[in-house]
């Protein structure tokens, strides 16, 4: 087993253990919130999920710019892998948010700016993944999808800023670096960060698996090309 595989298992194990510990604290030690009752606990996954999304899409954007600059396929691999993870966590974020909304707002979905933009972001990045499937030449694919990825990041920025630009139903920012502190209990904020770390470790493990795959896939592309040549 290579060091890379070991690293993947290590990251996944650490992430898993941390999640279990966090779940224990969240479910058994934290009291119900006064207004929302038990459901508020979803926040401890919902919010970190979106952090992961932003991180992943930001990473994909940076990797795309680096690809266009350096033209090294590694950056393209990072970009796809990050986008895929971002899309999975966007879906998770939307579903957890929707379940929360069912209890608190009484509806699954509302066309609120924050929600709408999150959904648009999901569509835009799904488009990115579709575009990749439609291009055969790996170099061309890397270049065109990098350009799309840079455009797509605009929608991420809008989603992020939506709660500032429009009056929305969505709860405001919670973390101190955006609010100046005092919005939630310090213990809860710490827990959000702990869960961000836990999910981040798992996401990093998945990212590494995905990178391996992308490398093998490029090998397949190369061999296919050689077979054609004969």
């Amino acid at each position: 087993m290579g060091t890379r595989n070991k690293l993947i298992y290590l990251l996944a194990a650490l992430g898993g253990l941390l999640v279990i510990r966090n779940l224990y604290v969240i479910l058994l030690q934290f009291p119900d919130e006064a207004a929302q009752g038990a459901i508020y606990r979803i926040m401890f996954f919902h919010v970190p999920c979106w952090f992961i999304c932003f991180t992943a899409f930001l990473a994909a954007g940076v990797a795309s710019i680096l690809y266009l600059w350096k033209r090294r396929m590694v950056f393209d691999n990072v970009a796809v892998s990050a986008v895929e993870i971002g899309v999975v966590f966007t879906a998770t974020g939307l579903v957890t948010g929707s379940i929360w909304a069912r209890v608190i707002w009484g509806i699954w979905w509302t066309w609120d700016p924050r929600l709408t933009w999150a959904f648009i972001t999901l569509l835009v990045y799904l488009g990115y993944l579709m575009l990749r499937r439609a291009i055969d030449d790996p170099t061309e694919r890397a270049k065109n999808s990098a350009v799309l990825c840079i455009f797509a990041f605009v929608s991420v920025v809008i989603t992020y800023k939506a709660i500032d630009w429009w009056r929305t139903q969505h709860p405001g920012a919670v973390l101190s670096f955006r609010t100046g502190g005092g919005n939630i209990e310090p213990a809860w904020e710490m827990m959000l960060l702990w869960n961000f770390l836990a999910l981040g470790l798992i996401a990093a493990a998945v990212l590494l698996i995905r990178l391996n795959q992308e490398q093998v896939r490029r090998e397949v592309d190369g061999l296919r090309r050689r077979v054609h040549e004969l």
Partner: protein
Amino acid sequence: MDERNFTFMFYGLAAAWAILAAYVVYLGAREGKIRRQLENLRRMLEERDKT
């Protein structure tokens, strides 16, 4: 109300992990597919090289 509230919280967490698990399963399936493609291509090239 409070019990229902608790059930929904459970659904929420379950859904989140279910999506993640589904993605990992999908990754595994794709891994297998890519490996098979690789093997096929390698074998094809070896056969061509022999002839």
